[in-house]
């Protein structure tokens, strides 16, 4: 049997698994208060050189504040921030070796594309020839050569976004900070740009730190993701780990779609754990270990695509088989999300299953009010304590 692993392995780049690897950016017990409001709460985080790191969270979770502290626009109330071994305390934004790409792009409206890109280089008093070369290189990298003389208002949204990127990369910063960089683009352009960003990062080998509320974006571009909530880190892991092995209901629910079933631990053995769902009266067999004791309340999180759905008991291999009644169907084209009522309690408990529409024509399709069987394997979900 081949070794099982969670998700695709992006490349041989996993410095976070080496205990003594020196971090490139380190937040050490950082707290930031705005009056009574705690935006960042005693947070510690290590980010490594050449990493593409995403801070993911809802609005008000402190992710932007964390980035702005690194850029120098906010000073931490407590704690320290290190970049490449240097304590950043007291260094103003204009002397920090990081550059930022702003959510609004913040292009200088009275300067041409060229001048915008050259602005940072001029502040460093580089000589004219060098500035010219650097600007040309950036224009090439972001495919903006033909727009060099234009003013920002003469550009489309996507072009503006690339100018902002070129401008923040021109100074070859030690870290590039991206604050919701693709938020203003439409979906298609956003997806294209995500891959462009990844390619540019590969080419330049710069450390990228991105702030986003879009989980798909974070999962697409990042080597590792930190999920934040209320000023604290909830989980820091690779995209696949975050998705397949969330450490809490918050993460499971925040990333993707999930069925959360409230359950009690009814048996623990060497092979795994048996759960009893709390109100619905069915058992769930898992191969997971948990430190919860017998009788403790836990949640079982299972992604809809891990749940198979069929008429009758055809899937005899699956360890878990639950009867259900089709309640609602969302037809999305590539897949259908089927909501089924399960269990015997008064409370309607809905279990969602993803059904891939692999054939155009189906005999006897699953439809409303059908009696179905929902089945999943022992390793399909995870047990969560909180």
């Amino acid at each position, binding site marked *: 049997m081949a070794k099982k692993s969670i998700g695709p392995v992006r490349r041989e780049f996993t410095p976070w698994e080496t205990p003594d690897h020196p971090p490139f950016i380190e937040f050490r017990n950082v707290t930031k208060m*705005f*009056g009574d*409001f705690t*935006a960042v709460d005693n947070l510690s985080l290590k980010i490594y050189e050449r990493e593409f790191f995403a801070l993911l969270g809802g*609005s008000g979770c*402190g992710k932007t*504040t964390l980035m702005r502290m690194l850029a120098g626009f*906010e000073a931490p109330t407590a704690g320290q921030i290190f970049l490449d071994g240097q304590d950043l305390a007291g260094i103003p934004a204009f002397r920090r070796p990081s550059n930022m790409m702003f*959510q609004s792009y913040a292009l200088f409206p009275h300067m041409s594309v060229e001048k915008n890109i050259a602005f940072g280089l001029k502040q460093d008093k580089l000589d004219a020839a060098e500035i010219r070369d650097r600007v040309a290189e950036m224009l090439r990298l972001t495919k903006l050569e033909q727009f060099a003389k234009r003013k920002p208002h003469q550009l489309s949204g996507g072009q503006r976004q690339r100018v902002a990127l070129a401008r923040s990369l021109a100074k070859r910063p030690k870290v590039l900070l991206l604050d919701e960089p693709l938020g203003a683009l439409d979906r298609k352009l956003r997806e294209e740009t995500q891959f462009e960003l990844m390619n540019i990062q590969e080419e330049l080998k710069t450390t990228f730190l991105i702030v986003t509320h879009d989980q798909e974006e974070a999962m697409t571009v990042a080597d590792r993701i930190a999920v934040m909530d209320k000023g604290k880190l909830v989980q820091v892991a690779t995209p696949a780990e975050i998705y397949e092995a969330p450490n809490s209901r918050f993460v499971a629910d925040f990333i993707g779609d999930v069925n959360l079933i409230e359950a009690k631990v009814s048996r623990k053995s060497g092979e795994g754990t048996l759960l009893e769902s709390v109100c619905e009266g069915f058992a769930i067999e898992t191969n997971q270990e948990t430190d919860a004791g017998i009788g403790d309340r836990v949640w079982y999180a299972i992604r809809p695509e891990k749940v198979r759905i069929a008429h009758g008991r055809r899937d005899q291999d699956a360890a878990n088989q639950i009867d259900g009644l089709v309640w609602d169907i969302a037809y999305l084209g590539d897949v259908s999300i089927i909501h089924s009522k399960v269990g015997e309690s008064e409370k309607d408990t809905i279990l969602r299953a993803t059904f891939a529409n692999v054939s155009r024509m189906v005999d006897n399709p699953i439809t409303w009010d059908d009696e179905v069987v929902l089945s999943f394997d022992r390793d399909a979900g995870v047990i969560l304590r909180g």
Partner: protein
Amino acid sequence: MDEPVPVRRTLGGWALIAVPYVWLLIFFLAPFLIVFKISLSQIAVAIPPYIPTFDLASGWQAFFEKLGELSFENYLWLTQDDLYWKSYISSVIIAGISTLLTLVIGYPIAYGMARSPQSLRPTLLMLVILPFWTSFLIRVYAWIGILKNEGLLNQLLLTLGIIDEPLVILNTNMAVYIGIVYSYLPFLVLPLYASLERLDGSLLEAAEDLGCPPWLAFWKITLPLSLPGVIAGCFLVFIPAVGEFVIPDLLGGSDTLMIGKTLWTEFFNNRDWPVSSAVAVILLMILVIPIILFQNQQQKIAEKEA
């Protein structure tokens, strides 16, 4: 942006606050305190023509001694001579009537502008703003030639045979109303136009769709939603009109009592600085209430928009 963005203040940031702040303290706030102080002094035949009541130069001891000797005579005088309180009341009444007239004339203009084709609106807006840039004095002066007994208006009406003998308008309160309405019309039209223009046309369509006839839709939808503009405009006319000097002086008659004119006369003709200071203090107190109300209203609008 997720989190509230506080301000990092450097030395330069403090200097930025300090320069305009200190300027206004010296040239706006301090003068008011001086006005207040002089209003408690006594008139004297001297230069300056008053006896300072108290002076910090003689130390705090003297200050407290003098505090007991403060002269409220000037305020007493204001209550005794009915010229003053009549002026106050008449100013408020004239300003109030003029404000209403301005609203009656200004609302249809603002409404017509907001309903005009999009392409025409910037031009109309400029036409309203333009008189605001033109000298106040000149605009008031222009009416003298029109309203005089042998003026253009009477000439026209006589020629048309509408009247047999010239109307006496100049040097009456009527002329003052006309002057105030004319001079302050842009102040009312501009905020009103702003609030009417922002009004979503589909609201009226929705009202009509639900069976509301257009005139009722105006009454139930347009008018209530333009109320902030109406209020702002009325304040902008009323407050300065109360203290108006040029209009009653040039267009009003000798029986037109307005406090701005009374203050001017008291100061320049009678050279009674303490009394004119007392007049100013009372005028200010009358205006403080509408000014604060106005500022609160503006703040509320600003907050709603933010």
